[in-house]
């Protein structure tokens, strides 16, 4: 049996789907579009699949999500539709319900958010609601898990009996009249249960449906005349008539079934909003919050714990323990080195930062689940609109603070192709979880734990995204109409401790797993490359790391990075290693300087790093790696979402070029201001900076057109 799960976004559909299918889920793609398709098996029953349809507000032909849902429901004929609606937002949610009821498929209505409803004091008469709509209604709370069993029983019963509900929603006389005409003239060959839906769509002159009936030239003309007459009579266009009538039907239903207590509308959400989205305070508050989040994670709590893991656990406890074990069993020194100087040094360096990661993830999970981030999209919309994106582009950025890959995939919700491409290209500018150890490392080693380093990394990411957006939107490639921004603002809610902890743990665990897999493999490779090289005696083991293969490879690339202030091979190698996984930057440096530490006896690894880089070159190195191309996995995601080799190459090329420019400027101008060095590099940097500012402030082709048009009109 096939159950189709349909409902508005924010109705709790995803939570319900998870409750119904547990981990028996499969995520794929709807054919031909980049919309995610989720399918699963109903827990506790055999052979029953649940399809999670995209969250939609209506069944219009205008967005891919709606079209996919229509296609699926009409062509694949699921046995029953489980329509989930948000009980605290019944009026608008039922709008989709009226449309689903016309499809001729048995439907069960699940009114969600029962827990919130109970608290608010509002009251729904479910029996009356069912009678008014003509279908079965159950009350549930997907979050608390109440009513689920009754709902499943009802859904299975309806599915098995294949009992179709009666159509309770009749349109006004003149409309019904026209619908009857349409059914008679065009639809007698269609299955009976689908005729009404098609009739209504033809009445609305729905583009996609009209295409299907192109062959009926003469009848169509006749029908169009009928529709025009109806429109004249009702003084409105067909589409609007239908929509308006749906809502009047719903208003009547609501009057009968919903009892509002009329409590004061100034809920806690509103009180919070008054401050947080206040005209003047909103952005500063956002800046303060994010600064605090990064400061606390990286510099305070983070550092205390990480200092212990780095200096004690991974220096005084684990390595000596392993070493003594290996020595005791008589393990060959070369293998010992592989394990200690390679794997333990590399992986240990990365794992040392786990505490900071966990702290950061807790904060981010909290901000996301309480609803604050949706507000931010609302606020940021104005800024984003200046360069042609909408607040919707902010969501991928937000997700990117955890991992860039789901961030890139989240760009799918952006309908406009150009905007989506631009979002995909810039999402990875935001520092992801993998970059965090690197940021923390630099903050500690080069900047002595200064509080501003970590937050600055985050804001640099945002600035990079905004500047890129502005610059790109002014180019011919990306210029164009601004996407419409119509977004629902769900109420704030106190996130459950369980959810937040689980989210943090999931991300944290995957970070640790990554350390034990990809990074572990990388450390073996790096160790090998750093321990072997071409010395005077030919190819073989080398004690001097500067003669190793690693150094050779690094030196070849080091030239490129010299203008950025970090032209020695160690950093080139770390950067390249970062392409596999951003944590590798730390792992690579850990191994390289670990060898150095061994050679220099007792000097702290990171102290050596700090000694080599100045504040300026250190910051340049930091920013370059934050902005340049992301890890291979993320590049793969970009390729999948762009679906086009040229665009992918352009995206990655752009990121590297941008990173290079910024790091170059930082290095040259930083040296100028802090150390007074002035050379040809400084001159180039100044010129480049002027060019950059020009790209930012020049008029876009449209603005130029507008100005010319305005001038002509004025004359």
């Amino acid at each position: 049996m096939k159950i189709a799960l349909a409902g508005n976004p924010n109705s709790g559909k995803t939570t319900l789907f998870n409750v119904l299918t547990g981990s028996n889920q499969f995520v794929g793609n709807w054919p031909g579009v980049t919309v995610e398709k989720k399918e699963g098996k109903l827990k506790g029953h055999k052979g029953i699949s649940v399809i999670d349809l995209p969250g939609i507000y209506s069944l219009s032909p205008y967005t891919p999500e709606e079209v996919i849902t229509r296609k699926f429901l009409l062509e694949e004929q699921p046995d029953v539709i489980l329509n989930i609606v948000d009980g605290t937002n019944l009026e608008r949610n039922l709008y989709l319900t009226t449309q689903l009821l016309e499809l001729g498929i048995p439907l069960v209505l699940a009114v969600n958010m029962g827990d919130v409803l109970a608290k608010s004091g509002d009251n729904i008469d479910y029996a009356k609601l069912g009678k008014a709509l003509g279908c079965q209604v159950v009350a549930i709370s997907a979050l608390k898990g109440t009513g689920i069993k009754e709902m499943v029983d009802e859904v299975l019963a309806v599915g098995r009996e294949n009992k179709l509900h009666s159509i309770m929603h009749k349109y006004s006389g003149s409309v019904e009249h026209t619908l009857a005409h349409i059914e008679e003239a065009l639809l007698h060959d269609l299955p009976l249960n689908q005729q009404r839906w098609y009739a209504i769509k033809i009445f609305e002159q729905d583009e996609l449906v009209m295409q299907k009936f192109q062959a009926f030239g003469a009848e169509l003309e006749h029908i169009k005349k009928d529709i025009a007459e109806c429109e004249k009579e009702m003084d409105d266009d067909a589409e609007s008539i239908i929509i308006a009538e749906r809502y009047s039907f719903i208003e009547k239903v609501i009057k009968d079934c919903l009892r509002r207590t009329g409590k004061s509308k100034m809920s806690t959400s509103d009180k919070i909003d008054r401050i947080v989205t206040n005209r003047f305070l909103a952005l500063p508050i956002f800046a303060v919050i994010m600064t605090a989040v990064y400061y606390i994670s990286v510099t305070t709590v983070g550092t205390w714990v990480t200092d212990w893991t780095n200096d004690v656990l991974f220096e005084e406890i684990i390595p000596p323990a392993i070493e003594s074990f290996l020595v005791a069993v008589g393990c060959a020194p070369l293998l010992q080195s592989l394990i200690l100087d390679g794997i333990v040094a590399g992986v240990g360096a990365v794992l040392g930062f786990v505490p900071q990661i966990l702290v950061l993830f807790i904060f981010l999970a909290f901000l996301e689940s309480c609803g604050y981030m949706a507000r931010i999209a609302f606020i940021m919309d104005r800024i984003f609109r200046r360069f042609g994106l909408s607040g919707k582009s902010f969501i991928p950025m937000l997700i990117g603070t955890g991992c860039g890959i789901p961030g890139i995939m989240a760009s799918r919700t952006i309908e406009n192709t150009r905007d989506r491409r631009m979002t995909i290209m810039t999402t990875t500018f935001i520092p992801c979880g993998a970059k965090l150890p690197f940021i923390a490392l630099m903050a500690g080693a080069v900047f002595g734990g200064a509080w501003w380093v970590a937050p600055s990394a985050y804001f640099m990411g945002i600035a990079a995204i905004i500047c890129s957006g502005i610059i790109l939107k002014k180019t011919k490639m990306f210029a164009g109409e601004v996407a419409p921004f119509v977004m629902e603002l769900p109420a704030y809610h106190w996130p459950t401790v369980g959810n937040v902890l689980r989210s943090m743990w999931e991300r944290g665990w995957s970070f640790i797993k990554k350390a034990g897999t990809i990074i572990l493999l990388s450390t073996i490779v790096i160790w090998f490359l750093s321990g072997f090289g071409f010395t005077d005696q030919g190819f073989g083991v080398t004690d001097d790391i500067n003669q190793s293969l690693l150094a050779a490879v690094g030196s070849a690339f080091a030239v490129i990075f010299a203008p950025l202030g970090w032209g020695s091979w160690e950093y080139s190698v770390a950067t390249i290693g970062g392409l596999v996984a951003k944590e590798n930057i730390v792992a690579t440096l850990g191994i390289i300087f670990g060898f150095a530490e061994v050679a220099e006896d007792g000097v702290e690894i990171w102290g050596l790093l700090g000694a080599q880089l100045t504040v300026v070159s250190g910051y340049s190195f930091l920013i370059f790696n934050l902005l340049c191309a992301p890890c291979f996995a993320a590049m793969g995601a970009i390729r999948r979402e762009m679906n086009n080799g040229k665009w992918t190459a352009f995206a990655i090329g752009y990121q590297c070029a941008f990173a290079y420019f910024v790091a170059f400027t930082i290095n040259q101008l930083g040296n100028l201001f802090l150390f007074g060095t002035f050379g040809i590099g400084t001159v180039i940097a100044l010129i480049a900076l002027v060019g950059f500012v020009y790209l930012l402030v020049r008029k876009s082709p449209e603005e130029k057109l507008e100005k010319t048009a305005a001038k002509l009109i004025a004359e």
Partner: protein
Amino acid sequence: MATVLISLGLIAVVALIVRSMYNDKKNGKSCHCGANCGACTKGCHSQK
């Protein structure tokens, strides 16, 4: 002899890692993202 044993152990570990990564890719779970893609959708495409 310990050397041999440990080397074999290491090779086994590497083989396991490679195999698990390969399996992940086949199941389409090569997310490398926070969680398994099932639970990941909180962020993947919730807001619309």
